[in-house]
């Protein structure tokens, strides 16, 4: 039984700062979800995850998160990933503050 592959992005936290980042198609780690590479193929997803995990001095805890195409680029589908793009809801801390300035 073949199930359709849900598109993914590779995400992790920066080793030094802990900030949430996304792997871009040109191998950068971006704080912006919509700059991530949207991966539509399972085998490619695994390759990209391996690539991410090899960057031990840059990031920790890389994993594949579900995403969908959007107007500006990939968008999260699950609320957890949506929160990770912003920061906590009780204070204007994290990305929602850092990226606004």
């Amino acid at each position: 039984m073949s199930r359709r592959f849900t598109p993914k992005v590779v995400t992790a936290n920066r080793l030094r700062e802990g900030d949430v980042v996304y792997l871009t198609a040109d191998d950068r780690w971006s704080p912006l979800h919509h700059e991530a590479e949207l991966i539509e193929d399972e085998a490619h997803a695994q390759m990209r995850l391996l690539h991410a995990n090899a960057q031990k001095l840059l990031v920790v805890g890389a994993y594949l998160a579900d995403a969908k195409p959007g107007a500006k680029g990939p968008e999260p589908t699950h609320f957890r990933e949506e929160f990770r793009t912003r920061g906590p809801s009780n204070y204007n801390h994290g990305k929602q503050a850092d990226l606004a300035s």
Partner: protein
Amino acid sequence: MYSYSDFDEAFVRSRVAQFTNQVERRLDGSLTEDEFRPLRLMNGLYLQLHAYMLRVAIPYGTISPRQMRQLAYIADTWDKGYGHFTTRQNIQFNWPKLPDVPAILSALADVEMHAIQTSGNCVRNVTADHFAGAAADEIADPRPYAELLRQWSTDHPEFQFLPRKFKIAITGSPNDRAVTKAHDIGLRMVRNAAGEPGFEVIVGGGLGRTPMIGMTVRDFLPEADLLPYVEAVLSVYNVLGRRDNKYKARIKITLHETGKEEITRMVEEEFARLRPLFGGNDQKLLADIRAAFAPPAFRNAPVDAYDAFYKADPVFRAWADTNLTQHRNDQYAIVTVSIKAHGATPGDATSEQMRLLADLAEKYGHSDLRISHEQNVILPHVHKSDLPALHAALVKAGLGTANVGLLSDIIACPGMDYCALATARSIPVAQELATHFEALKLEHEIGPLKIKISGCINACGHHHVGHIGILGLDRAGVENYQITLGGDGTEDAVIGEKTGPGFAYTEIVPAIERILRAYLELRTEPSETFLQAYKRVGMEPFKAALYNTEDAQDAA
């Protein structure tokens, strides 16, 4: 309060040096994350959703003004100007950067604090009644025993790799304010027929995915047997505890799988072997420790000013009625400072608030401060004549909220705003409940009520023992909140019962309102509390209020 010996000082400093080196080696690539992770966890450093988090122990909840100021300094220098007090009498900093953590640990060591054993499968920070040494109902101050346990368990070679984390709580009062029955070992001070103090030993309590109330394995343990007995319990657990399955690894499961009788037999056998090996040095140490917890020099002064003010000022009276607890010295009161102004994040204190509390403790509170598992700050010894001035200073700083023990005095875990394990948010639910009922002006009418919220089944927010418990779950990609009723964390501990299907994020506050309106309708008189009413009428009327409405039908 207890002050570090040369040994403690050297131990903590050497740990800071070790960890500093480990961080350097992680940053230069000599250590992989897999190698580094257990090392950072041993030092209280987690990686959460948006950043690292450093968990610092506040042993048995006791903290000095100097330490409190240092926490404020750390919050300002390396974090975002605040800290989060937790149900385990720790403080968590939510935004440290990895290269800064060694400096933070060093700043903590400067004031005799650390983050050791605040994580990992070891004996965690020993928690105690936050009113210890002050409560009128106390048999003896439990903190010397807690300190003894801390010294014994810190870096104990046999217990660094337990099957799972191990939590000990201790109370010196028959009225249990330390939730001892929900800990791996709970110790409750009692007296035997001869009037000597000792402990009721409760084993195998715990919350999380399989909540259980602990079982009493000894009705009376003489004081002098404390360490050998606790060591016997841990040894038996260390051998029997399941290392094959993390969800079955806590002692509560060991107890249930092995049976109380068999475990008790094994513990007693091990105890008989260990007891003679304790030659009395532990008791000498205890005597020294006890001297460090001598009560302050209480003042003897008139309290008429307090009585007059209480009669005259309704705002002060409301605060005094909710936030004061009886002190064992009649002229004194225990002050609980609510750091839960309506709409604030439960447990969070800003650096400014920390500094003010430190100042007020020095000015009015014999320089003693406590952190409660209910996430408030306590001034345990305040002379009644100082209460009006203290209250005025608190009000000025926005810390005068009169809500201790009421609806808005909510325990909430960090939930999905910070925690990587969360399945839903808990902080905004707490904030909205508090502001909603504040707008309705209902919380004083509702009276004593404990609402506790967790953002996943790990139950860090103690929801199982909340009179109303709220558990945030992920149901098919949306936040969903399950309600439990009738939980109780006191000496009569009970795990709450589920009401039925959960509620969406936007539905949870109205659902709680329906429960509370039903309670107001059915209570026999205003003095019948929510918990008493629930015990009398059971689940049905609340279920009806929750689910027999058109809104609820749509939601379910």
